[in-house]
């Protein structure tokens, strides 16, 4: 079904395109948030990405790559915004211009991004949320694949350690084989 929708979207059906974009809003917002300061910037980057994907849709030869293609464009849009000098980079202490969400999942997600160093943040999101392979991440962020794997592993350990210390009386153990 999703494949059919992608084909229709790439073929120029605006309703199918909209449905496809809406299905990717979670991934897009989380990815943009991993790079940019505030929600206004995320909104701009996502809007630009939607436009570019609609304009360039016919250049995508394989519809099954739509999702990764979308996120790649989004990452580049976010980086463009940073380079424009009209926006500030992600810094832990810069407050949101609008009141942040108090929904529990949003708080948890924001905390997770907050405890991760910038160099781990995007890589963790691209891997665990967007489903990119380490080789694809390496190409996108212009780092050796070995570095990506190391940062992924370290980012995960930081998150695990943080959340383990938050849990009461429970501790995640490594799987042990006999």
């Amino acid at each position: 079904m999703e494949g059919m929708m992608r084909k229709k979207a790439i073929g120029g059906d605006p309703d199918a395109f909209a449905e496809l974009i809406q299905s990717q809003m979670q991934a897009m917002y989380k990815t943009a948030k991993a790079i940019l300061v505030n929600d206004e910037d995320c909104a701009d980057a996502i809007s630009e990405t939607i436009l570019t994907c609609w304009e360039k849709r016919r250049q995508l030869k394989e519809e099954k790559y739509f999702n990764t293609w979308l996120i790649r464009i989004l990452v580049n849009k976010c980086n463009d915004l940073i380079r424009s000098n009209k926006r500030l980079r992600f810094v832990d202490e810069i407050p949101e211009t609008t009141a942040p969400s108090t929904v529990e999942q949003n708080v948890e997600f924001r905390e997770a991004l907050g405890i991760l160093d910038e160099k781990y943040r995007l890589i963790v999101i691209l891997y665990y949320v967007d489903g990119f392979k380490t080789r694809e991440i390496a190409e996108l962020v212009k780092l050796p694949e070995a570095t990506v794997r190391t940062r992924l592993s370290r980012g995960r350990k930081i998150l695990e350690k943080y959340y383990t210390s938050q849990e009461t009386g429970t501790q995640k153990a490594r799987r042990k084989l006999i």
Partner: protein
Amino acid sequence: MMERNGMDWIKKEIEIPNSVQKKADETLNRIRGQAANGQESGKKKIYRLQGGRRKSVIAAILAAALIVGTATVGIAAYIASMSAGLKDSLNVSDEQEQQLMAEGDLVQDLQGSDSARGDGTEEEDGLNATSVTDQGVTITANQTIMDNNGIWIAFAIEGFTYDTDTSPFIRDIDFSIENAQVSSMNGSYYTEEGLEYIMVLGVEDNDASLVGKRITVTFSGLGEAVEDKEKGWDEEVTVDGTWELSWILSGTGQSREVELNAELGDTGAVVQDVEISPTSIKIHYIFPRAESEIQTAGGNTAHTLEELPAFSGVVLKDGTVYIRIVNGGSEGYEPDGMTYVSTKRFSGVFDPEAIDSLLFIRPDLNLVGEEPLTLEDMFVVPLED
């Protein structure tokens, strides 16, 4: 499908802020409106940056998509059967052959594919040669199977005759892949149906996929080899020709990455993650480099690396067990002295998604040679919880 064990919480749905959702909705509504009026969007931008770098990155992404797309179309049009030599080398059954050819992604037909012939520019077409004739002998690169760790290539050799009491022999083989380090090369001759040379190249860790990269293979000197039990092989070049073949690699680089962090018993080794491709596997262990002393036969003391449980086989989701499937590979420590990378080629073709568990040989078995093994001799590492 990706396995992202233990991080499910990060995928939980969060509330998209109103400002973000609203702007996205406005953009989509504008696209709908313009499409309804027969216009393309993009005439009015909310925010538009200029930058050569941004355009070149997008162009590179679209070019990569184009290469993959072109190869797939080529395969569907031309491939009917697999090279006999490839099929034999990879122990592919008739049934599996039908499935592989029908899926059309893994086996690349160089004689029918546009991608092997380059991007259609005059410069690229001039560089590509998948079939070369010299001294009356034609060598043709027919098919490839490529995954993230290496490439199988089937070369057909026509017009070359040799005494049936001898074996075919190639004096020199040079090979290179653009911006990639080839770590190993093995080759064998298949003589049941015509003459084929089956080459398998192992590739070191790369920053990017091999798709779209140029490969060059040069054969020099064809002849006959006879085994002399006392002197070894006696080789004679009978056709002193040179055949240089070059083409652009194509394929989909199908693989399955799984993060495991699985301890292998009390060995101190941890399987950190694996990348499984149809014909190979790459394993990252955490296993601090340690040496132990041994006594040699001459009574001297030597140092040897502590033994790491080696990958041996797989268990499929349907319960089928393949105890020994390794057919060469390469391995070694990364500079940190902690991460050990092992790349192993399979002696068959496996669907990465069909694998349930990986098998690693317990190092305390003191094996000598190819003794029969059972599951009891293995650490069994499930890929899913």
